C-alpha cells in the first residue's frame, strides 16, 4: 500500500531543552524590561535641553578631565592587573606554594567585599599616615589623592577578573604542549614565551576587558582614596553623582551616556582584537 506523503513538510526538529520557546520569550522580556528600557531612558534623557547645550556641558574642562581620568586610569589599571593576574594565576596553578588554597580563596575577596569597605581600607592604608602611605610619603611618593591612588584601587577590584579568567585556561592547557616543545629543543623561557603565553592570550584579553569595564564604572572603592579634587582626581562616576545632587539630570545622563558608549566601544575593540589572535584561528568564539 502506498502512503500519501505530504509535500514540502520537513520533520520538526525537536528543541534542545523542553520549553525552549517560552524560556526564550521570558528571557527576552526580562532583558528588555531590566536592561534595554533603562538604557533607552538613559539615551533619551540628555537631549531634553537640546544638542548644543549637551555638547557644551560635556566639553567643559572639568567633565573632560573626569572622563580622561576615568578611562585613562581604567586602562592603565587593567594593563597592570592583567600582568599581576597572570603572575598570580601562574603561581596558584604551577608553583602551588604552601597555603595556595588559602590564597586561591582570598583572590575572590574583592568580589565579595562591599566596595565602600574596600575604599575605606585602601584609603587608610595609603593615606600619608597609613601603613603603606607613610613609608612611601617618606620617599616622596603620594598615593592617596592622586591618579595613582585611583589606579591602586582599580587594580584591587580588577584582579579577580583576570585571575578567574586565566586560571581555568592555564589549568586546562595540556602538559603535552610543554613536553612537545621540550623534545623539540626549547628552553624553559622559550616554552613560556612561545607556547604558553600565546595560548593564554585570549583569556588575558577577556580578563583585561572585564577589569577595564569594571574600572571605568568603579565608584565606591575609588572615591575614598582619590581625594576627588576637580581636574586632578575627580572620576566621571563621581561627577555624575555631583550633577545629580545639583538636580541636573540631563547633565548626569549625558556623562552616563558618553561613558556607556565609550566603554561599549572599548569592549568591542577588545573582542575584535581577541578574535584576531592566532590562538583563536579556526576556533569558534
Amino acid at each position: 500500500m502506498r502512503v500519501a506523503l505530504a509535500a514540502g513538510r520537513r520533520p520538526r526538529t525537536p528543541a534542545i531543552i523542553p520549553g525552549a520557546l517560552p524560556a526564550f520569550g521570558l528571557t527576552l522580556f526580562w532583558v528588555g524590561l531590566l536592561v534595554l528600557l533603562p538604557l533607552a531612558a538613559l539615551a533619551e534623557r540628555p537631549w531634553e535641553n537640546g544638542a548644543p547645550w549637551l555638547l557644551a556641558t560635556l566639553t567643559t574642562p572639568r567633565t573632560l578631565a573626569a572622563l580622561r581620568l576615568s578611562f585613562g586610569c581604567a586602562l592603565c589599571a587593567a594593563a597592570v592587573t592583567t600582568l599581576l593576574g597572570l603572575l598570580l594565576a601562574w603561581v596558584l596553578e604551577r608553583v602551588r606554594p604552601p597555603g595556595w588554597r588559602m590564597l586561591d580563596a582570598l583572590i575572590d575577596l574583592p568580589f565579595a567585599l562591599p566596595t565602600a569597605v574596600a575604599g575605606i581600607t585602601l584609603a587608610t592604608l595609603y593615606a600619608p599616615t597609613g601603613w603603606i602611605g607613610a613609608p612611601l610619603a617618606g620617599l616622596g611618593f603620594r598615593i592617596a589623592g592622586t591618579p595613582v591612588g585611583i589606579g591602586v584601587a582599580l587594580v584591587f577590584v580588577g584582579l579577580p577578573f583576570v585571575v578567574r579568567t586565566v586560571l581555568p585556561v592555564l589549568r586546562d592547557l595540556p602538559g603535552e604542549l610543554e613536553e612537545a616543545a621540550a623534545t623539540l629543543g626549547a628552553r624553559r623561557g622559550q616554552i613560556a614565551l612561545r607556547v604558553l603565553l600565546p595560548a593564554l592570550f585570549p583569556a588575558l584579553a577577556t580578563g583585561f576587558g572585564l577589569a577595564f569595564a569594571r574600572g571605568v564604572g568603579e565608584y565606591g572603592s575609588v572615591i575614598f582614596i582619590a581625594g576627588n579634587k576637580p581636574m586632578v582626581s575627580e572620576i566621571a562616576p563621581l561627577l555624575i553623582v555631583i550633577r545629580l545632587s545639583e538636580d541636573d539630570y540631563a547633565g548626569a545622563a549625558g556623562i552616563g551616556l558618553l561613558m556607556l558608549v565609550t566603554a561599549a566601544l572599548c569592549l568591542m575593540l577588545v573582542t575584535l582584537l581577541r578574535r584576531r589572535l592566532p590562538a583563536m584561528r579556526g576556533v569558534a568564539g
Partner: protein
Amino acid sequence: MGVELRDISCLFGRTPAVRDISLSVPEGEFLALVGPSGAGKTTLLRIIAGLQPGYTGHVAIGTRDVTQVPARQRNIGFVFQNYALFRHMSVADNVAFGLKVRPYRRRPNRAAIAARVSELLELVQVGALAKRYPAQLSGGQRQRVALARALATEPELLLLDEPFGALDPLVRKEIRTWLRGLHDRLGLTSILVTHDQDEALEVADRIAVLRDGRLEQIGTPAMLEDAPATPFVHRFLGETVGFQAMSQAGSLRLEGAWRSVGATLPPAPPGAGSVLLSVRPYAVGLAQTQPGQEGARVLGVQRSGAFLRYRIAPSEALEAEAVTLLVPASLPALSPGSLCALDLSAARLFPSADDPMPQKAGRAVSAVDA
C-alpha cells in the same frame, strides 16, 4: 641511532610502573612496545624521551649515555597521542618551531627554515596546508603535521605514543603503512607504543610485550607467534583457546571436563606436571569422528566470513565449557549435534605455574579482557 636501556625501573608513588627493563634497539629498527593499558609502555617511552622524572637505570641513545640529559638535548622526535600541536601557530610555524628555538649560532636562516618546512610538509603530503591552523585540520592531517614537526630537527630517534589512536580505522591502516615506508626511506630508528597488537604485528620489525611494568618477551612477530615465552604473550597477540592438560611419563592427557574427549595432542614436554595448552581458534583441526571413536559435541555452527564458527563442548551437558573454533568454510561442514575429533597438535605448551592468571580450561580468551 640505536637505543640501549639498562635496568630501567620507575615508581609512581609506591606502585612500580616499570620494573627492571633492559632492552636494546639496533639502529634502523622499528620496535613496537605493546601491552594492555597500565603495562608501563608509555612510561618507558617517556623515560627514553627524558620526559619522565624519577627513574633508575641507564638510557643510551647511540653511543651517548643520556640518563642525565634533559629532553631538549636528547635530539629525539616525539609524536604524542593527541598530537600536541601548537594551536596558535600555523602548520608551517609548528613545523619550524624546533628550528626557530635553536640557539642563534646553530639556527638556520629564515630562507633555510622555510625551505626545510616546505620540504617536510611535502614529505608528509600536506604541502598545501602550510598556512592553515591546527583547528582547521582533520585528524589524519594533524597526525602528519605532528610527524613533520618531530622530524624537523633531524632526530636520531623517533618515538611515537599511540599515534594512531584517535584516527578512524581506514585512515589508521593507511597512515601506518605509510609511516613504515617513511621509516625505511629516512633510515630512522623508531619506537612505537600501541595497545593494538595487529598494528604492532603489521609495522614493527620486533615487538616488546610488556605486562605490569615487566618485559614479558621481545622478538620478531614470527618469533612471538612460534615460540611465545608465556601464555600472556600468546594471548595478547591474538585470540586463544586454552586447555588444561597433565604431562606424565612422556605422555600428555587433557584434564578436567575435556578429559574424556579424545584429542590429538602435541608431543609431551619433558618432566611431569600440569600443562596449559594454548591454541589459536583457527589452528584447531576438526574432523568427523569414526564410528565408536570418542569426540566433542558440536553445539552450533555459524558462518563468519571465510570461516565457519563452531561452538564445541565436551558434551551437551557441559555447555558451560564450550569453546569457539574457526574452521575454513571450504572444509566439509559438521552438523550441530554431531561428534567431532579435535586436533590440538598446533597448541603451544606452558607449564601451568607460568600463568599467574590461570584461566578456566577451555575458555576462549581474547587480548581485550586479558
